[in-house]
């Protein structure tokens, strides 16, 4: 005889899986046709399923004439630079915000939210003029510099939350034990920042990875990243299979990074991340 478990109403039993499935569909649903589209060259309305499978789209997307490899390399390069710089700047600025009683602290926090609040088009148009004048247009450096403010703002907001959970007295204690200011930071605060720093770096990379507008205007078509190639392919060729293939490639890094970060953070105190402070 098995032990009798109290019966729960069927609705209660099914509620959780149902919500989970619906949420998954809502998020991943739009991606499903994409995954199918990339592997066919004939899929016409109102067919529920493609008439023929083919790798033609992939051949075009990653073939000899394709610029996808180059675009991915450019995107990763720019993303890495933006992520590293934004994380470093965000760590420094977050420390100042969290540890020092700055005059106009609220105002600074509002300014940091500006990239979220201000319509990106307005920013991009203004930025283009400035970068043209400064001679930074049409260059990778220009694109990195243009993407940096938004990425740094996010990183700063995140890191100030993380810094708020670090005790400034620990660094002072390390100083009295013979540590230089830099060593005191590295040996006492940095180990406690690690989780938040991972998330901030990842965020900054993703902001860069998915940027279209600034890269288009500042890069002037010379700097081709994955989103630019994607739009160009979608608008220019009308080749739906190739477009879908590139789109799938564009999705890979975010998924990969999220998985890596989740592994890194597993077991860590998530309150340290300062999210929802």
């Amino acid at each position, binding site marked *: 005889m098995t032990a009798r478990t109290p019966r729960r109403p069927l609705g209660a039993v099914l509620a959780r899986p149902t919500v989970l499935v619906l949420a998954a569909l809502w998020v991943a649903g739009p991606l499903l046709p994409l995954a199918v589209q990339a592997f066919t060259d004939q899929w016409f309305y109102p067919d529920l399923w493609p008439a023929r499978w083919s790798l033609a789209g992939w051949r075009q997307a990653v073939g000899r004439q394709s610029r996808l490899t180059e675009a991915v390399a450019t995107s990763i390069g720019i993303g890495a630079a933006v992520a590293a710089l934004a994380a470093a700047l965000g760590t420094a600025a977050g420390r100042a915000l969290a540890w020092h009683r700055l005059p106009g602290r609220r105002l600074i926090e509002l300014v940091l939210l500006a990239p979220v609040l201000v319509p990106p088009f307005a920013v991009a148009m203004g930025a283009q003029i400035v970068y043209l004048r400064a001679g930074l247009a049409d260059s990778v450096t220009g694109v990195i510099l243009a993407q940096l403010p938004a990425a740094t703002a996010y990183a700063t907001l995140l890191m100030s939350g993380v810094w708020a959970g670090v005790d400034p007295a620990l660094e*002072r204690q390390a*100083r*009295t034990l013979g540590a230089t200011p830099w060593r005191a930071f590295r*040996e006492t605060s940095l180990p406690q920042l690690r989780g938040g720093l991972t998330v901030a770096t990842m965020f900054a990379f993703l902001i860069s990875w998915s940027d279209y507008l600034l890269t288009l205007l500042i890069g002037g078509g010379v700097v081709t990243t994955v989103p630019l190639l994607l739009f160009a392919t979608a608008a220019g060729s009308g080749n739906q299979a190739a477009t879908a293939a590139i789109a799938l490639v564009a999705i890979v890094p975010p998924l990969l990074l999220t998985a890596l970060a989740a592994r890194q953070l597993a077991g860590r105190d998530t309150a340290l991340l300062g999210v929802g402070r």
Partner: protein
Amino acid sequence: MTSDIILDNLDHTYPEAAAPTLRQVALHVPAGTRTAILGPSGSGKSTLLSIIAGLTTPTGGDVRLAGRSVLRQPPHRRDLGVVLQRPLLFPHLTVAENIAFGLRMRRTDRAVVRRRVAELLDAVALPAYADRRSTELSGGQQQRVALARALAARPAVLLLDEPFSALDPQLRGDMRALLAELHRREGTTTLFVTHDRDEATDVADHVAVLLDGHVAQHAPPAQLFRRPASLAVARFLGGAANAIPGTARAGRFDCPLGSLHLDTNHQGPGLLLIRPEAIVVAEHDAVNVIPAAITAVTDRGTHLDVRATSAGLTLHLTTGPATPLRPGDETILWLPPTQLSVVAAQHQQRPASQQR
């Protein structure tokens, strides 16, 4: 290696503060000795320690360690050990790694570090805790590790800022004993900041009383109680219960109680101070014997709090719990000359005899 500390007319005023925190603080702590800085909260004692540690820059004066001014040196070059009220152990390191921190910063040879860490773990009675996380320890254990960490690199000076005040009273006694033991082993010049007079007199061979940002008296503990330098010091040490106005001259103090014998440098009008514990009941000595009437007796269990009047003045005294005294008794009180001191009356007049 251990060195003396000289504070030379230190001044400090915090930015935008109306009054200075420290005023002309001068102090000499001889090498290898233990000095307590005793003061109420807000007296500037923590600021003083922070200045010596290099975490605060004074607005005036000088700090010399082993004869050399260290004001221009950053904290990590001053060769100090600092223990604050909170243990502040590094949470991501083990107990042994915490203790080894200062040695690692000085690039000490690994074998030496291992030996020194083991030695200190023994000294603070935590030999089995080397690989524990600091967060797994109790408050008292954490503070013991903090002490070991501060001493590991054999600093020239050990600075302690209320290191035991967050601990249970019972534990505090153990920690004082441990500190004395560590001092005997290491011989490090120690400066101990506290607001607790029992702790100060227990831990230190000299006590500097810091009142209102300046050193009001610097003396061995016994002298502090027997010969307070001012009414303020006596008050802070709980010894102003009997303050009798009168006039001092060489070897004598004339007041309503009579012409009392004592040893004082004070000349002219002043206040005679005697601690309630120092008054002896019913003793027939040749000098300083006064008749008195007992007016109140309160049994505190460990002692009796007694009030008596003599020549119209109220005297406070404490006696052993079994002393046969009752209100209304006529008795004889002896004021031992060695226990009497005279201080200047304060400018603003306060009641001459004050309740503790």
